[in-house]
């Protein structure tokens, strides 16, 4: 007979495990959020401020500004960026049916970067009315457009007759990244001094620039992508069997692919616009979760969001404290951890890698 657990779950069913993991990850996110608010170069103490608040006494203006106007937007930005990059990675991997697809590796972030750079350099050329219409949202919106173009192009290049070639995907991503880098270089060449300062700041891959205006400008795109992603999970599960099988299971495949591309583009575009190039979150997080609780996207997407947010907050705490009072760009921290991790995945799959 088929083995049944005492609770009545079928052996081989990891849905319960995935649900319990969600609770653990939610707790981890709370810890990371607390650490993100508590740690900083200014020496402002969160516990002391909280104690003051509870005692009913006034918090001094400096503490209030540091906590509410510097650390809080940074916390919210870090959470949304981490969640967006991890969820975008998971969706991209589901779309390409390949665990090696990462927004950074296949040129999607580069496309978003080109959009962001265009907004910074060419934004001044827009008629005042149009520029005023977008305001601070111009950078995330153009970054979204850039990443959307990149994913769509990559999909057309790498997928033929419902089959994605890993080699074409990775090489196509390299080619796209090289082309976008050339255009970005051209724009940087055209930039004036003030724009160059903005660009350098942005391209380091950092949450240091987080402010309420930037956070609020990028938040709608990221939140929309994060909320829409779970709706793709049933389709992405079916797509793991191949396009034809997904169609046979009643999935509107074309709509699913369009939805996945838009979600990835919005998440990566807005995240890149606000934080520059933060790599490897999109490949490390979904991979760890697949190892732990399986590839079912219904759990994978939610848990990727939680773990991605936690990990990016913790990486940000590390980047702020390791060389305090200065800080390391967070992109360096994620690359130092993520690079070797990616190589490890590659080596493990070397035997079975289909090129």
């Amino acid at each position, binding site marked *: 007979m*088929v083995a049944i657990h005492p609770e009545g779950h079928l052996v*081989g*069913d990891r849905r319960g495990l995935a649900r319990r993991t969600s609770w653990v990850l939610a707790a981890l996110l709370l810890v990371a959020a607390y650490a993100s608010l508590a740690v900083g170069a200014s020496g402002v103490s969160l516990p002391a401020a909280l104690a003051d608040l509870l005692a009913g006494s006034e918090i001094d203006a400096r503490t209030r500004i540091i906590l509410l106007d510097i650390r809080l937007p940074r916390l919210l930005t870090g959470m949304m960026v981490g969640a967006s990059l991890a969820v975008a990675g998971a969706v991209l991997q589901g779309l390409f049916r390949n665990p090696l697809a990462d927004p950074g590796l296949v040129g999607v972030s580069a496309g978003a970067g080109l959009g962001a750079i265009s907004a910074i350099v060419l934004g001044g050329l827009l008629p005042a009315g149009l520029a005023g219409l977008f305001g601070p949202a111009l950078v995330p919106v153009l970054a979204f457009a850039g990443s959307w173009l990149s994913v769509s192009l990559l999909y057309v290049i790498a997928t033929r007759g419902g089959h994605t070639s890993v080699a074409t995907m990775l090489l196509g991503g390299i080619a796209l990244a090289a082309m976008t880098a050339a255009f970005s270089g051209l724009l940087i060449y055209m930039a004036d001094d003030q724009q160059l300062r903005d660009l350098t700041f942005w391209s380091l891959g950092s949450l240091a620039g987080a402010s309420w205006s930037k956070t609020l400008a990028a938040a709608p795109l990221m939140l929309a992508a994060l909320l829409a992603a779970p709706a793709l999970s049933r389709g992405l599960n079916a797509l*793991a*069997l191949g396009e034809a099988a997904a169609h*046979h299971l009643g999935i509107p495949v074309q709509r699913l692919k369009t939805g996945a591309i838009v979600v990835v583009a919005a998440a990566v575009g807005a995240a890149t616009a606000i934080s520059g190039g933060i790599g490897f979150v999109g490949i490390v997080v979904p991979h760890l979760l697949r190892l732990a609780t399986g*590839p079912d996207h219904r759990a994978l997407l939610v848990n990727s969001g939680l773990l991605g947010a936690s990990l990016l907050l913790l990486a940000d705490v590390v980047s702020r404290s390791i060389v305090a009072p200065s800080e390391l760009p967070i992109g360096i921290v994620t690359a130092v951890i993520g690079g070797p991790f990616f190589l490890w995945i590659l080596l493990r799959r070397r035997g079975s890698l289909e090129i």
Partner: protein
Amino acid sequence: MLDATDVTVTLGRRRVLDGVNFQAAPGELTAIVGPNGSGKTTLLRAVTGDLGYRGRITLAGEELSGIPAWRLAPRRAVLAQFTPLAFPFTVAEVVRLGQIRKGPGSAADLTPRALARVGLCGYASRPYQELSGGEQQRVQLARVLCQVWEPVEGSEARWLFLDEPVSSLDIAHQLQVMQIARDFADVGGGVVAIMHDLNLTAMFADSVALLAEGRLLEQASPEVLLRDDLLSRAYGCSLRVSTPPPSGPYVLPHAARLG
């Protein structure tokens, strides 16, 4: 009733199917046979709604191309020759992908029953990617059975489309899978299966469609269709059909040396 009339499929510049007329009825197992490259898989893909075609294909009187995927899914399931998986799902998770209908009236979890049906009871927690080709094929059959396990509203017939369901199986499992298909037909379902083994076809099929070079040569019961001249012409080699009383006909390749 599945009714294909004058169906032509062109892939690239090649006409892969040319004016094919093909029928399959609920309650019957209809086999599609023919040499390699004769258009069997193309015909199956046309009647499952995967390919554009010229001509008419109707399922229960309704034009196939007008039925959206979500409405087609509870009525017909398709087993491909080979289904590689992108991610490390367990066997139970793969089979559960087939259970597309949830809600009142549907059974809680068909997975254990479907796995038992294909003889893979102890496999639920095994990683799909580590199974042999034949075992993977039976897992996919369990998934496909899940998809059409429950009756459709309005008591419409349910259909199984199988592309060479036994090609990677040993003889015992060939018989097991053909029996599952036979049972599905015996309770009123329709089965359309591409077959290479003419003897299994003779044992299990109610109707056989013989294709060669993109054309339908003939569709009839195995007793009528399996004839020396027709088969030898279709396959381009000498074949002799024998009928040992009292069972049905069987086919042996007729090599010149055996004379």
